[in-house]
């Protein structure tokens, strides 16, 4: 090669036209033998290539990662998502990097990406692959994660004997054993199990038939047509059923106040803790039940609503991103967070403006927006709604992550990190005027209470206090 080719271009033998048309930087073979769009194998279920190609490395996702901000070992969402996906193609020597288990699945990176890269879908997929192929199924850590991820099973058992469970779960020696054998931190208090689950209460109130009666009464009072088509299917999730049935009861009363008939279909866990632990087979089993029962109702004209922002997130985004189940897209498109749904269909803002609150909810609230509310565009919903409500005050404690991320902060080896992430929120809560917390997410609520000792309420409880007689 002559100097005229300029510096930096290596001396290479001319390409043998019969040889395998591998990539050659001097004479790139972009003819018929080489199709640049086919360099990666097609994905089996979901093709992540377009997402990976859309990433232009601005690193905005990294500025949103609560783990990377405190953990020097964690490479951040840009690596975990598009970069790892690319590195893994056509290279069987490399598995998924084990740092994927340090991602807390807060999903904030999704809301950050100006290019629409499905980062959390990539993280969930990689984590699932890591757990399926690289994690020992006989290790204690695997079983610890599996038990934590299947919270519904433990909660179901505990709800049979709530008083015994409440005593046993926070019994010092038992917790010491749990930490030493399983790696479940003994720093945290287990949440109380309700003596009456939400579903028990619901049956006692007459179930769907009772709700229809009450909704019709309310429609008369409101001057609406008595047979108005206002029907919703409530996805209460595990926590509102077993631990905070007052949230579920508030939802039913608020919806009936607006003239809605509520049904409470059969349901399993939304899958949120299973995604976060890479237990995709478990998650799929639960999702199939949920999609089937919610799908039937959606087909009959119901909309699905959830009071937990992680549950609504799972049904809306994670299900269609991870599973191919019949009817899953219709369920996703017809699922709403419960307060959001009322903002769309009713004059909730007007009723809140005309209302006032007395009693124990006439308080100053320190509100924390759950990370999973962000992708749904709901992180400001509560503060904007309640700033017009007489008798209460509400202050946003900032956009930091609470740090617990479901089961993450329950793990012995993650506890310190979880508290370090939460530090900013604790500080802002302490300096806020009120000493009652508010959030939509049950595990954020645990963390808020753990860090400050405040009592934590759900927005639906305040709406109930404001507008339901």
């Amino acid at each position, binding site marked *: 090669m002559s100097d005229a080719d300029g510096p930096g271009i290596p001396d290479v033998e001319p390409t043998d036209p019969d040889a395998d048309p591998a990539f050659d930087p001097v004479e790139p073979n972009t003819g018929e033998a080489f199709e640049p769009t086919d360099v990666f194998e097609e994905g089996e279920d979901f093709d992540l290539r377009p997402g990976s190609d859309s990433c232009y490395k*601005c*690193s*905005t996702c*990294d*500025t*949103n*990662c609560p783990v*990377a*901000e*405190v953990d*020097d*070992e964690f*490479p*951040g969402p840009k*690596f975990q998502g598009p970069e790892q996906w690319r590195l893994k193609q056509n290279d069987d020597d490399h598995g998924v990097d084990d740092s994927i288990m340090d991602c807390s699945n807060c999903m904030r990176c*999704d*809301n*950050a*990406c*100006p290019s*629409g890269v499905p980062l959390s879908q990539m993280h969930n997929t990689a984590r699932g692959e890591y757990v399926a192929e690289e994690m020992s199924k006989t290790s204690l850590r695997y079983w610890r994660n599996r038990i934590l991820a299947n919270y519904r099973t433990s909660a179901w058992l505990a709800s049979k004997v709530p008083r015994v469970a409440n005593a046993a779960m926070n019994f010092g020696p038992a917790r010491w054993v749990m930490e030493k054998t399983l790696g479940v931190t003994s720093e945290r208090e287990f949440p109380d199990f309700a003596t009456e689950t939400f579903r028990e209460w619901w049956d006692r109130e007459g179930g769907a038939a009772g709700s229809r009666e009450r909704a019709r009464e309310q429609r008369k009072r409101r001057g609406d047509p008595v047979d108005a088509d206002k029907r919703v299917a409530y996805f209460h999730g595990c926590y509102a059923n077993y631990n905070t049935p007052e949230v579920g009861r508030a939802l039913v009363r608020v919806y009936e106040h607006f003239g809605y008939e509520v049904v409470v279909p059969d349901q399993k866990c939304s899958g949120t803790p299973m995604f976060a632990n890479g237990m995709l087979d478990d998650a799929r089993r639960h999702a199939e039940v949920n999609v089937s029962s919610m799908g039937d109702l959606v087909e009959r004209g119901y909309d699905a609503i959830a009071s937990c922002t992680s549950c609504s997130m799972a049904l*809306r*985004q994670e299900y*269609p991103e991870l599973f191919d189940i019949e009817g899953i*897209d*219709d369920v*996703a*498109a*017809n*699922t*709403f967070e419960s307060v*959001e749904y009322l*903002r*769309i*269909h*009713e*004059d909730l803002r007007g009723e809140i403006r005309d209302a006032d609150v007395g009693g124990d909810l006439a308080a100053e609230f320190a509100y924390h927006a759950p990370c999973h509310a*962000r*992708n*749904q*565009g*709901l*992180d*400001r919903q509560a503060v*904007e709604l309640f*700033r017009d409500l007489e008798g209460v005050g509400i202050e*946003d404690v900032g956009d930091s992550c609470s740090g617990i991320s479901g089961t993450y902060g329950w793990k012995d080896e993650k506890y310190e990190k979880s508290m370090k992430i939460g530090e900013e929120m604790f500080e802002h809560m302490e300096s806020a005027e009120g000493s009652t917390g508010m959030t939509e997410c049950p595990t954020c609520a645990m963390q808020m209470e753990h860090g400050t000792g405040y009592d934590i309420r759900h927005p639906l409880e305040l709406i109930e206090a404001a507008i339901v007689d």
Partner: protein
Amino acid sequence: MAIESEVLVVGGGLAGLTSALAAARAGADVRLISYKQSTLRNASGLVDVLGYTPAGEGPLVDPYGAIPELPEEHPYRTVGLAGVREAMDTFDAVAPDYRGGHTDANALLPTHGGTVKPTARYPAGASAGIASDDRDLLLVGFESLPDLDAPHAAAHLEAAGVPFEARGVTIRFPGDLRADAKVTRYAKLLDTNGEVTVRGRERPAREALAARVNPVLDDEDRVGFPAILGYDRAGGVRTDLARKLGAEVFEVPMGPPSLPGLRLEDALFDALDTAGVSIETGNPVVDFEGEHRIERVFVEKNGARIPNAADQYVLATGGLVGKGVESDRERVYEPVFDCHVPHPDGRYDWFDRDPFGDHAFARFGVETDGDLRPTGPEGRPEFDNLRAAGSVLRGYDFAAEKSGSGVSIATGYMAGERAAEVAG
């Protein structure tokens, strides 16, 4: 039903935030919807008005003086000189950590490439770096942050003829941060003055950093760092470092992701919150209903279409980079309302063959009437109640002129004010 407001702003960049603020301050009930988080975190944090004329003359000393001479299609001509001034006053009122509002003249600020940029406003944290100041300066770069190559940037500054001596050194940031640690990791460590490990000993991060810089500092009066000196408590970090170094400390604005951009984003969102604006991010506006008036728009969330209705609308979705203007092989278009985007038919006429030539695409965008309402091919408004602001507008090349922030603020302000006026 729909989620309702008087004025609905689509877009969360500088133009969208300014229009929402202007409309709310004028008394309207305002809602702002942004596809994703604000793109301000990609911005350097410098707020320019006009650095060069469209013919390339400059750097301009007085950006305002040049505005009446701009071509008629330039958005500044639609807003008018008085409007631009009012808009900048509003910006100053809500960005207290900004400097430059005391004068009409442009300031000259060093960039992380070592060039000098004319700009109308700059963060307080960058002010000690100003290039018209004749005190000598030291630039300190970090090995793990190649975005600021300090010796190179210093040499570049000297070559540009600055009236002081500039020297650059590269050091290792104290502690065992990973090689690709995020800018937020540095900022958080300095904000909290967290412990870092230096030769087996734990030391507070600010003290450890000053200890690394002191031996390489000669008698320079000011020291510049990459813009990672804290996030929430940046002022405190600078003051603390300045005391430990015995020199003024400043930040050199950087590329994305940018802490000065993040801080500006926070200041503006706080101002919107105070003004009572309702804000939603995370999902795009994809469609609308209406013929000559927009009745409602739809936000898409995983297949669900959430209706949002308002009396007046502002389109502030950005330009070709921000996806407010899109193109394919056939045409250039505005994706939300399909407003008319004038452009040559053949796509080979959209650009110049010289990379630094006069590219037509740089000025692509929607055309408006005197009220900032996008107009169709016949020059009539596409919709009675839609105004456009920021880089979705045609007629200016913000990268060449250094006018991006100013046009966004000025047109955002005007669109917001007008929308509120009509809605009220």
